[in-house]
């Protein structure tokens, strides 16, 4: 039965497709292969999510070596949710990428782009699927190395420096993570996450385990761009090719959040060690700083891609804020926001890619009156901006609603107030776009522009439509996230 191998299959498929694409040496067949692989991945992850919906856990022993000795792939309600998110975004972005990549990259690099894309997808799915701490590091590096290369494909030469800086900070992050895992291995003698969680409860020498927690937290927070470890992110997102930005912004940081959740709740959660450090308070402070400072920096940007990159840093603050509450409602809010923000930001960066196709760099001084000539793209960004702000009826509203609920539940009404105040900052930067695109006269150059091609516009607008769909019908997102939150907190309560 092939279905039995689904947990590994969706990781192996893109991993095998990547070298195949290099052998093909042509853009068009490579793209076709990428489409097949990512849509198959979406099908597999949806069927996995359906299988674990009742709370069961799929354990897959690679090479039939039984865990904890062999590498185990372990799918539960938490990572099935993340797998669906990653493969969904990949499936949409790959359709979008054909026209975008054709315009932004020279023809001889197209097949390399799809090959790197498949590698990055394999890495991200692998991080989410694996139940082995060291295997996770390997996939973390597969996804990171391919994303450094993808960012360096950007047309602007600053893409090279952005990629280099991301490489340095990303490698430091991954090395911190592996130091933490090494310390945990020394203390528990296992690398299997489930096994580690059990043995950790019996560890009496707490200091090394706490050091491991600190190393893993800092390492992963570098990867997920938690303020103030976000310095690599704005440049990387701003100068990468549009399709890369849309894919990475929607998936890479989100998968890192998943790793953090996994370590905090599934591994450390079962022992009291987690509460020996004021993790919740630290996360709360950094999240609030991200929400306000990154939003404020976003407001003063003149480049739109940078603006939305800083907005990503702020939105990651909301996700970690949800984690810092350490309650079912808070985690639900965090996980829902992880999904909703991935949709929103993916859609926004795809629409910005439509502008980039016509304009090159997208700055406030060259998009004056652009809504007259590119009405669908502009309106899409406004709608996506509404979801970013958290206007009622959008997906962004749902996640902020749960975060506010969690804040009130924990009796910290001032955090609820902070969530609303920081949303006002989002209003400011979205309004800056509205003002430039709708209320200025287009200059002669802008007036000649045409709307973006349908194959880019349709996937992007479908994602925007999804933002509204998930703002009205929350059965998939909120229920899925609530179940994931319960699974995570099972060990503690």
């Amino acid at each position: 039965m092939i279905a039995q191998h689904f947990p590994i299959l969706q990781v192996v498929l893109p991993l095998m497709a990547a070298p195949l694409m290099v052998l093909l040496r042509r853009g068009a067949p490579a793209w076709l292969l990428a489409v097949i692989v990512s849509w198959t991945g979406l099908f597999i992850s949806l069927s996995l999510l359906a299988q674990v919906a009742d709370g069961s856990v799929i354990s897959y022993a690679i090479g039939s070596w039984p865990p904890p000795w062999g590498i185990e792939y372990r799918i539960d309600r938490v990572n099935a949710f993340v797998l669906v998110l990653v493969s969904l975004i990949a499936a949409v972005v790959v359709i979008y990428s054909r026209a975008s990549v054709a315009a932004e990259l020279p023809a001889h690099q197209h097949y390399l782009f799809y090959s790197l894309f498949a590698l990055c997808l394999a890495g991200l799915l692998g991080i989410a699927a694996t139940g082995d701490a060291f295997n996770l590091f390997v996939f973390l590096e597969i996804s990171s190395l391919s994303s450094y290369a993808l960012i360096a494909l950007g047309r602007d030469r600053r893409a090279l420096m952005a990629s280099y800086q991301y490489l340095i900070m990303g490698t430091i992050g991954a090395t911190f993570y592996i130091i933490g895992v090494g310390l945990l291995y020394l203390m528990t003698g296992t690398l299997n996450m489930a096994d580690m969680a059990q043995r950790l409860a019996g560890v009496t020498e707490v200091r090394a385990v706490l050091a491991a927690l600190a190393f893993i937290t800092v390492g992963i927070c570098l990867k997920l761009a938690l303020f103030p470890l976000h310095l690599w992110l704005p440049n990387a997102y701003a100068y990468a090719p549009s399709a890369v930005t849309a894919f990475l912004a929607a998936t890479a940081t989100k998968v890192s959040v998943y790793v953090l959740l996994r370590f905090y709740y599934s591994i450390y959660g079962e022992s009291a060690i987690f509460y020996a450090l004021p993790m919740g308070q630290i996360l709360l402070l950094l999240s609030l700083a991200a929400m306000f400072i990154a939003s404020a920096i976003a407001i003063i940007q003149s480049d739109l891609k940078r603006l939305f990159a800083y907005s990503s840093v702020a939105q990651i603050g909301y996700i970690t804020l949800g984690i810092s509450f350490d309650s079912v409602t808070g985690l639900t809010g965090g996980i829902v926001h992880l999904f909703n923000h991935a949709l929103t930001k993916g859609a926004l960066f795809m629409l910005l890619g439509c502008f980039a196709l016509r304009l090159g760099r997208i700055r406030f001084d060259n998009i004056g009156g652009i809504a007259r000539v590119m009405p669908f793209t502009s309106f899409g960004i406004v709608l996506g901006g509404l979801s970013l702000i958290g206007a009622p009826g959008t997906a962004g509203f749902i996640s902020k609603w749960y975060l506010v609920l969690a804040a009130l539940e924990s009796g910290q009404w001032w955090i609820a107030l902070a969530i609303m105040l920081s949303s006002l900052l989002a209003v400011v930067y979205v309004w800056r776009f509205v003002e430039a695109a709708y209320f200025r006269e287009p200059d002669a150059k802008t007036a000649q522009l045409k709307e973006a091609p349908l194959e880019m516009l349709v996937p992007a607008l479908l994602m925007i439509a999804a933002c509204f769909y998930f703002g009205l019908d929350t059965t998939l997102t909120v229920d899925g996230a609530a179940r994931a939150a319960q699974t995570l907190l099972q060990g503690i309560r």
Partner: protein
Amino acid sequence: MTIAGHFSYWITIFLAIAGLYIVIARGNLIKKLVGLGIFQTSVYLLYIVPGKLIGGTAPIIAEQYGLYSNPLPHVLILTAIVVGVATLALGLALVVRIREAYGSIEEDEILDLDKTPVFPNTATSKPA
């Protein structure tokens, strides 16, 4: 335990801090990568050292061998070395491309070049 007893750990910590310091303090892109390499290598030691038993052999299960070293860290670090090599290769490739685009591998010079307008012959940021 004494300082001498933890000798190998001190080496590990020294290498890690030295590597990280080079990454932060040096402006030369190649030197940064060297620092990164030292930092990563220190982690190899962190894994390998506790796996070694003095007088231990390879893991052979037989009567005459009672004591053997843990083989798993070696395997893990073999993987980590491969990852490190790949990172270094990609980093160096990026530095080559940066040198071609900017004519420099000093971080502060490159950042200065980006502040001034891009020269036509090196401009790659023209609109499509």
